[in-house]
């Protein structure tokens, strides 16, 4: 694990990269990383996240800046710009049920090929997917999702990379931290090793590649 500046962290991300981004309607999204991506104008990104927040907040800033080619999310309803760019053919949007989305990401991080879920059976969500019966009940096979980078917002990070999250800012963050090739973390506080008790660590240190310096 390395502690680096936000500029250097974002410089690691090439154009066209796929990013998993923590947050739920902007709560728990690493705004400093988002702002720096906008400043460095990283283009043709794919974002996998719960939602695209709203204009001016979190992933909404990436939408407004026109940096996204593709979005995989469960909800874009509070960001009219995402819908406009989708209708205009500028952003491809894959809508995935929220519980399916988080399980697909988890599968990607946990070395599973996917999961069997009843969600979406008999709806347009099942189009193009394999369906399987277990003890007489139908399930969709939903396959694992991974990405190049995870952009994680933590509450506490220690200097080895152990993380905690606060309240409803946890959401997708600990799951995406397992599902990408590189994990970049912004934390509200960076604390000495030992400040976070073992039982309170939500993301163990070996999962974290970079923490953005708070200076």
């Amino acid at each position: 694990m390395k502690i680096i500046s936000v500029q250097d962290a974002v410089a690691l991300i090439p154009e066209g990269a796929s990013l998993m981004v923590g947050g739920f309607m902007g709560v728990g999204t690493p705004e400093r990383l988002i702002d720096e991506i906008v400043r460095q104008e990283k283009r043709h990104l794919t974002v996998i996240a719960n939602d695209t927040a709203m204009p001016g907040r979190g992933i909404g800033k990436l939408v407004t800046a026109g940096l996204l080619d593709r979005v995989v999310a469960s909800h874009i309803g509070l960001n009219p710009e995402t819908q406009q760019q989708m209708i205009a053919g500028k952003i491809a949007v894959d809508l995935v049920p929220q519980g399916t989305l988080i399980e697909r990401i988890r599968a990607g991080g946990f070395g599973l090929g996917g999961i069997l879920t009843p969600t979406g059976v008999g709806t347009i969500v099942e189009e193009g997917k394999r369906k399987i019966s277990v003890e007489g009940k139908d399930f969709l096979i939903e396959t694992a999702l991974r990405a190049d980078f995870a952009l994680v917002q933590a509450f506490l990070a220690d200097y080895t990379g152990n993380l905690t999250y606060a309240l409803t800012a946890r959401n997708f963050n600990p799951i995406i931290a397992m599902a990408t090739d590189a994990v970049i973390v912004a934390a509200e506080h960076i604390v000495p090793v030992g400040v976070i008790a073992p039982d309170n660590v939500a993301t163990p240190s070996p999962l974290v590649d970079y923490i953005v310096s708070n200076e």
Partner: protein
Amino acid sequence: MDAQTIIARRIARELHAGMLVNLGIGIPTLVANFVPPGMAVLFQSENGLIGTGPIPEEGTAHRLLTDAGGRPVSALPGASTFDSAISFGLIRGGHLDMTVLGGLQVDEQGHLANWMIPGKMVPGMGGAMDLVTGAKRVVVAMQHMAKGKPKIVKRCSLPLTSVRPVTLLVTELAVIDFPDGHARLLETAPGTTVAQVLASTEAILIVPDDVTTMVL
């Protein structure tokens, strides 16, 4: 009493002490205002909170304690927070006693459509598909008509949220359930006749002899 208040008050009567309940955005959110005094009901926000309390008093909000719409909430004593995988494990795994959602259409068999109007409105399904598939009881809070047209239809023309029938549908005119996969009128609103309900409904409703009046 306006339509939204009738619906929210009636649905609040479905609450029991100790239940775990998820309220969707819109009319469902209002249900929390009508929990009977002294009844301990736990509300889940699918963004990762059990024990959601009322809107925080001035000066007591925290930006990292929010509901599924991103708005500040409070947390009651005994609240817990968790990640999205656990949140939907609770929902999909049948641990949620009741979900209350809005609707665009409900059909004769109890199928709900509530997440898109092709070509017009594509917000995404969010957690709705998991909620309707997994919650023990699914209650739809919906105005009976939209722009003069029935929303309770023979067959949903909009994309379904789930093939699982909902448990209960509450409008400002009626309460409807779906035993054996067919809509049945249970209650009418005070001052509303059965004939008025039927005239406002495209779906064929079974009308038992003992249709009662909503208690609000």
